[in-house]
């Protein structure tokens, strides 16, 4: 294995690979990605890969909008078909409180040139004719939202980064990070030591423990999230169906299978357990059959789980750690880190190489929790 590197990225998921690609594209040399397992074995390969620009904070709207712009041409840029499917997101509302929040969200989104609008239950049914409208009092629709194949996207970034000279080491686990006087000296792995002064923590659900190795505290925790997929069936509808109050998201993918899950912050275990449960598939099946009754006869073929890496305000933590020079963080994505990867990867690369970013992300620094300047995102599952 290599003995010395300019930049060591810990974690070969979509974040680490996008950062490596963007660094290499900007001309950085001697970049190494260390992955304890294989490419896309973490959350990136387990997620829904939905891309929405409908959020409740300006920061998330902007980051997602810029990512969507990149996704539009990413297949060509990376020379790998990532199967972009611009099917839209239909977000359904069940309470007046939600409608009020959605009105605010839509105003914000429109001010940022995101093509979202309020819809009535009848308009929702025009968009997705197989919906059972029970309990639904409205919603929002953004036709330019969509999804990609998360596996292909992660491999695409990894391969493109390697073509530009970055090195990807699978089955290479970081076990220790050596520091001295607030600077990084090296990382120790199960395959040997690499001298470096710059480390990027892109370890997803393990980013907290990686911080500990470097002696820094990162206020994140991980929590299991489960997901299932059905057999492919004839085309029924296209957009992602999502609700925050009823708590679900599911969508028919281009291959005909229906993929989705829900968040269960109260019951799901914290930590790194990613076993699947029957309670999940039962509850999810109930939610699906209630909203789209025709799914009653459709078979689930597979279920699995992955980790959300949660931050105190459900927003990512981006930037250098104030107490450790050269220790950059791209973590705490709280369940929407796949869609942001094209943009955050570019911004982290800019930050490392130029010391400044083309979209201001200083508000997403780790210091915001001490300052009490949390940016609470109201619209997450």
């Amino acid at each position, binding site marked *: 294995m290599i003995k010395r590197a300019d930049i060591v990225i810990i974690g070969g998921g979509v974040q680490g690979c996008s950062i490596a690609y963007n660094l290499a594209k900007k001309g950085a040399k001697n970049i190494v990605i260390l992955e304890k397992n294989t490419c896309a*074995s973490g959350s990136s390969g387990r997620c829904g890969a939905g891309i929405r620009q409908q959020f409740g904070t300006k920061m998330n709207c902007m980051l997602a909008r810029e990512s969507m712009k990149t996704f539009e041409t990413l297949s060509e840029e990376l020379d790998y078909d990532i199967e972009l499917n611009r099917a839209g997101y239909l977000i359904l509302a069940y309470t007046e409180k939600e409608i009020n929040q959605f009105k605010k969200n839509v105003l914000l989104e429109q001010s940022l040139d995101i093509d979202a609008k309020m819809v009535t239950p009848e308009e929702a049914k025009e968009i997705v004719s197989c919906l059972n409208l029970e309990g639904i009092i409205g919603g929002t629709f953004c036709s330019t939202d969509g999804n990609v194949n998360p596996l292909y996207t992660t*491999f695409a970034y990894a391969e493109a980064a390697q073509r530009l000279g970055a090195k990807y080491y699978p089955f290479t686990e970081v076990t220790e990070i050596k520091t001295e006087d607030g600077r990084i000296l090296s990382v120790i792995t199960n395959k040997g030591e690499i001298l470096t002064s710059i480390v990027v923590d892109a370890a997803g659900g393990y980013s907290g423990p990686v911080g500990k190795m470097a002696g820094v505290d990162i206020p994140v925790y991980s929590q299991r999230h489960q997901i299932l997929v059905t057999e492919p069936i004839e085309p029924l509808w296209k957009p992602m169906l999502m609700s925050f109050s009823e708590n679900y998201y599911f969508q028919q993918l281009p291959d005909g299978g229906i993929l989705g899950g829900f968040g269960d912050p109260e019951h799901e275990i914290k930590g790194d357990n990613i076993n699947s449960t029957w*309670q999940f*598939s039962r509850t999810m*099946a109930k939610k699906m059959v209630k909203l789209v009754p025709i799914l009653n006869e*459709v*078979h*689930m*073929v597979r279920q699995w789980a992955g980790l959300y890496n949660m931050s105190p305000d459900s927003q990512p933590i981006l930037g250098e750690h104030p107490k450790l020079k050269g220790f950059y963080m791209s973590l705490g994505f709280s369940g929407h880190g796949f869609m942001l990867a094209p943009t955050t990867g570019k911004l982290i690369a800019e930050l490392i190489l130029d010391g400044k970013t083309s979209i201001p992300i200083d508000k997403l620094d780790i210091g915001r929790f001490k300052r009490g300047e949390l940016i609470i995102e109201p619209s997450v599952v």
Partner: protein
Amino acid sequence: MKDETIICRCEDVTWGEIRQALEKGYTTLDEIKRITRAGMGRCQGKTCRRIILREIAKFCHKDIEEVAMSTFRPPTKPVKLGTLAGDDDD
């Protein structure tokens, strides 16, 4: 084996696609599954998994026992959503 030979019938994956993944350096069952979708379809790899395992072993000059299995995901047989939704006893 011919490149056109279908290895995974559920997802329509040919030997050619698997061979290319191997040649790119993806030599675990999990990686090949993720890149080609082999084994992700309705039957969840009941037949193709053995064949791919054998081909990985051949390609890497290893014994078949030395090649890591991919994760078996529940359920082992497809279940109707309606059945799941109606199932209440915990």
